[in-house]
């Protein structure tokens, strides 16, 4: 029994990092007031670049390049949304579509349509230690990152300004701080995290870039962000909850297939999305709602 619990938690910790990092990236961007539905595309860029880079250099360096790829896309998103006041949802979706096609194209031109050759996976530490052992450094980073981001957003001057840029950008401007620069930094750092989430798919979950990656995990991360009420700790908990729910569903249905006669598999698979919808529908005014200026380009003429 204890062994099964161990396996359940271990599987959760192995699957969660991709979702946690991506959800944190989305939080960072949206707390500054820029909608980010391009997480999926940024993850795909991160996964692809990390795997391709790891073919010719040490894998950790590949991960860094993957993060930068995610950041580059996010910078493009920020530039379109801030400089040109483009529709933030449209820009994000465009990034998803372009990356879907570009990833496939580069893969076919350079490798095979199925994926890149296999690479050296990130090292796994402490195998044999229950639950926490046998994972890559990314798992531990995913455990620490939510707290670090929480501290930055809640406890630093930068964090205060960032939140203000998402709630009432005019107040930030009145203080003599550039809203555009704040938002640009936040969105780009968000892309860095989304790229890291993608990279963890191709260097820790699998040992190559596979042509379907990330297969909807980016949208799942956005759902986790909403579920976590736009807070780092909440979003990370929601992401971990989704990964845990998956592991639990798998473990339960393989041990006791009778469960599926009561609840169809499709319902279980749709559960995270259903929960997010329910939460959105029941959202009250006041604490824990979306940032007030989310999705509106900053206009200095407005009061």
């Amino acid at each position, binding site marked *: 029994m204890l*062994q*099964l619990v*161990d*396996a*359940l938690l*271990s*599987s959760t910790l*192995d*699957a969660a990092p*991709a979702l946690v990092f991506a959800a944190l990236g989305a939080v960072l961007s949206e707390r500054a007031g820029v909608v980010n539905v391009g997480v999926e595309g940024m993850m795909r860029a991160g996964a692809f670049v990390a795997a391709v880079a790891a073919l010719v250099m040490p894998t950790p360096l590949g991960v860094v390049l993957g993060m930068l790829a995610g950041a580059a896309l996010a910078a493009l998103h920020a530039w379109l949304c801030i400089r040109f006041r483009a529709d933030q949802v449209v820009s994000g979706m465009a990034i998803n579509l372009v990356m879907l096609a570009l990833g496939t194209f580069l893969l*076919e031109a350079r490798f*095979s*349509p*199925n994926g890149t050759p*296999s690479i050296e996976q990130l090292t*796994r530490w402490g*195998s044999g230690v229950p639950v926490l052992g*046998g994972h890559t450094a990314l798992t531990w980073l995913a455990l620490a990152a939510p707290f670090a981001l929480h501290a930055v957003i809640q406890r630093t001057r930068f964090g205060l300004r960032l939140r203000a840029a998402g709630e009432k950008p005019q107040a930030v401007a009145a203080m003599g701080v550039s809203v555009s620069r704040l938002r640009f930094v936040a969105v780009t750092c968000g892309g860095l995290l989304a790229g890291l989430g993608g990279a963890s*798919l191709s260097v820790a*979950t*699998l*040992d190559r870039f*596979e*042509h*379907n*990656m990330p*297969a*909807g*995990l980016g949208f799942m991360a956005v759902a986790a962000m909403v579920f976590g009420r736009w807070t780092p700790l909440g979003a990370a908990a929601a992401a971990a909850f989704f990964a845990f729910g*998956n*592991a639990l569903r*798998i*473990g339960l*249905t*393989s*041990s006791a*297939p009778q469960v599926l006669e009561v609840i169809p*598999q*499709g319902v279980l*698979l749709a559960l995270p999305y259903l929960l997010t919808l329910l939460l959105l529908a029941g959202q009250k005014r006041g604490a824990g709602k979306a940032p007030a200026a989310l999705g509106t380009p900053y206009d200095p003429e407005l009061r």
Partner: protein
Amino acid sequence: MTRALALCLTLVSVGSCKKSDEGGGAKPGEKPAEKTIQVGLVTDVGGRGDESFNDAALRGLELWAAGSKLVDGKYVPAEKRDLEASIPADLASMVTRLPVKPMVLQSKAQEDYQPNLQLLVDKGCDLTVGVGFMLENAVEAAAKEYPKARFLLIDSPILDANGNPQSLPNVRTMVFREHEGSFLVGALAGLLAKEKVGFVGGMEIPLIKKFEAGFRAGVKTTNPKAEVLVSYTGSFDKVAAGKQVGQDFMAKGVEIVFQAAGSDGLGVIQAVKEARAAGKNVYAIGVDSDQYRVAPDVILTSMVKRVDLAVYFAAKDLVNGNFIAADGDLGLKENGVAYAPIRLAVPGKDAAVAKVEALRKLIVDGKLRVPANLGDLEAFTPPAL
């Protein structure tokens, strides 16, 4: 404006099709030495180099039938060594060179299927092959538009509006009896594992249930006491979901796992690979093509679908003048499904292979019927070994 744009796009797509025509087609003024038969082939979006379905179909046509290979967009005669290496030992006597000329178009998007098929028919192909069930609609439309042309559709029957199989007078369709191949890998797993084996499917659809039914029947035959864990990931594109299923199975002590789950299956294999690296004695079984390259130290064998053979047979029948438009299926008897060579040195391998071969003979001789769905599996009584 929109109409003009649509016209432009059509012209562009036709133009690009022509460009991607790879070295086929007789040059004007060139006299054919003997009557060569042109065989066209349209890949699905996976295309050349997918190391799976499309590559297998191309191998059947270009290498086996025409004895040629593609170098820089032109066909050159293949070296004898390459040709011999590509033909599995059990097919060596069946495959001989045919006087056919391949003409291949790759599809970059779903919208390419029908124009590509039409282009090949217009270029005078005597037979046009559509690779994969995704081309079902396109082949149906092309076959109705060109009643004199002949077609081969791989891996799906032609379906009518209600989704029921129908026959067209100029289309041969070829599906596979995957349950028979799955039965043999199930039997092998049962022989090599002690207590637990596992099956991971992708989406819960009848095609994948065929794999499950065959696999479980195989395990039941050789190791009735073994427990079979079954899980469906619900998708074919989520590596991470597949890996979680694999991890679950490994934690529950599954020794050998068979996956028919597309990309999710790669995640399953990865989980097995990591469990093996952590010191567990576990194996995975691949699917569709020989997947040993994915993870050489954990892939015990693969349940292979011989798409190459289906294409080759159609070309051969065409050359011999006995091409019949009919709905056919390929199983163990026709060598249409098989298990890939077992490369790992597993204890008890020779004895296990001998037993699996005996079972194969029973099925080939028609003495054993493998269940193709879970209903039949209930009623299945294993043969005495």
